[in-house]
């Protein structure tokens, strides 16, 4: 039905996922997320007392520090920091530890495409590892539109450069609950279909974008399942 990609995957296949937690001894929580050859290591310190100037002291504040593989941080890294901070703020329960700061430090180990989704997944796992109270998890995936109009999930760096457009998105994970009313839905759309974060590059039609979101949702259910399973297993470092 569709063409095989350079690394042998078809359009809807993700690269193999690996999530390792509790790698760093000094950090309060840490996790490494691998998506094929893209590897991001996240460390969480906190909650530490006090917030920075300009932050709301009635809420917990989150600080994100992005460490690139090599060199200084530039505008792209600043943008990643901002997107990550706002994404993590939306999944944490900020009223539990008011007037504290939680630092999330991300170290890029290797980048071969889909860096931002990988970083979101890594920091989410690290927050769980540190025991920071969360509303729900965030799972993130990227989806690209190729020049000939087909959609591919989780593009690698080589593929990313040839894409007409690509979208990074983060969704809440699907809740497991025994309460029937707990799965809140609106106009027939369940809560986990809502988008926490979306960034897109390149021009495409609105319909293509909505298709990307649909693809992303389907994939995020799989990643969510993987994340849940990997968080349930105990690690013995």
């Amino acid at each position, binding site marked *: 039905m569709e063409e095989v990609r350079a690394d042998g995957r078809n359009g809807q296949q993700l690269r193999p996922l690996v999530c390792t937690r509790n790698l760093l001894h000094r950090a309060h929580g840490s996790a490494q997320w691998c998506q094929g050859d893209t590897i991001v290591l996240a460390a969480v310190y906190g909650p530490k007392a006090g917030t920075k100037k*300009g932050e709301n002291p009635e809420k917990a504040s989150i600080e994100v520090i992005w460490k690139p593989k090599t060199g200084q941080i*530039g*505008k*792209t890294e*600043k*943008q990643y920091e*901002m*997107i990550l*901070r*706002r*994404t*993590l*703020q*939306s999944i944490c329960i900020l009223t539990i530890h008011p007037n504290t700061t939680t630092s999330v430090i991300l170290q890029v180990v290797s980048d071969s495409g889909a860096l931002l989704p990988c970083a979101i997944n890594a920091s989410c796992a690290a927050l769980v590892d540190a025991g920071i109270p969360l509303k729900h998890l965030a799972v993130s995936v990227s989806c690209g539109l190729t020049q000939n109009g087909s959609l591919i999930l989780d593009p690698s760096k080589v593929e990313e450069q040839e894409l007409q*457009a690509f*979208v990074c998105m983060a969704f*809440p994970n699907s809740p497991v609950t025994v309460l029937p009313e707990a799965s809140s839905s*609106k*106009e027939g*759309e369940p*809560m986990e*279909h*809502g*988008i*926490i*974060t*979306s*960034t*897109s*590059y*390149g*021009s*495409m*039609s*609105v319909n*293509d*974008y*909505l298709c990307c*979101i649909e693809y992303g949702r389907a994939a995020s259910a799989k990643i969510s399942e993987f994340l849940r399973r990997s968080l349930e297993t105990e690690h013995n470092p």
Partner: protein
Amino acid sequence: MAAVKEDAGGRGGGFEGEMEVEAYRRLFPLPYYERHLLESVRPDARPLSSARDTSIAVGAVSSADGSALVKTGETTMLAAIKLEVMSPSQDSPDEGSLAIDFHMPPICSPTVRPGRPAELAPVLSKQLSDVISRSKMIHLKELSLVSGKAAWMAYLDIYCLNADGSLFDVALLSAVAALAHLHIPLVSLNDEGRIIAVSGDPSRKTTREVVNKDKRKLSLNSVPFSLTCLLHKDYILADPTAEEESIMDTPVTVVLDSLDCLVSLYKPGGAALALTSSLKECVSLTRRRVQELRSILDEALQSTEMDED
């Protein structure tokens, strides 16, 4: 405090004075806004889906090669382009280049402090260059002078003079207006094969041939326009002010070009989740706004052309 409580509970009752409403607004900003939203109106008397008045003045900086001053409500941006001749890179010998920078000086907002760069400035700068390069609005080939030898380097600087919300929208509009206004100066080659500017009256006979006689303006195709909406519960507020942005923290920025292609949809986190229905609503609000902005931009460009003739 009693007065405020009274005001929060029941309407009226002699506490509608200037001070009490102002105090309520500052102490309980979210309930203050929600009571407005319930009546489908915003504190500045706009309906939820309408943007603030926008005005464009092109050619605001006479020393720049292209410039524009854009105001949307109180948000003011000044964009200016300076052209310089450079030698093009080996990979693309017949292309010029465009460098975009966004500045937020301390005068623009009380949250920006002198001596410390604004956190938002590099992020917006990156977003603007992504949108402008990805929308393919300008052909970099048009900035070429002599293939492999010389090309224009365009420095587009956007200064935020007053940051009152929807910064990206206004910055993008000012960038687009400045690019549309850009006049490329005449240059010629001298005897050593170097580029020199042709000064003075262009009608005067010059001994040297002008290199770029027919390339004085950029041809802009598929111009991008954007609209930021705030999501709060079931409400969608178009073109928020800084106060609204600080109270309700879920912005969605949609960029559509004149061919109705989606150039960017940017939602960085936030408390509210965007369902497909609200995304569609944002896109249709943006479509309407694109029509508005296009006519405002065309009008501004036409009126300056008439002035220049």
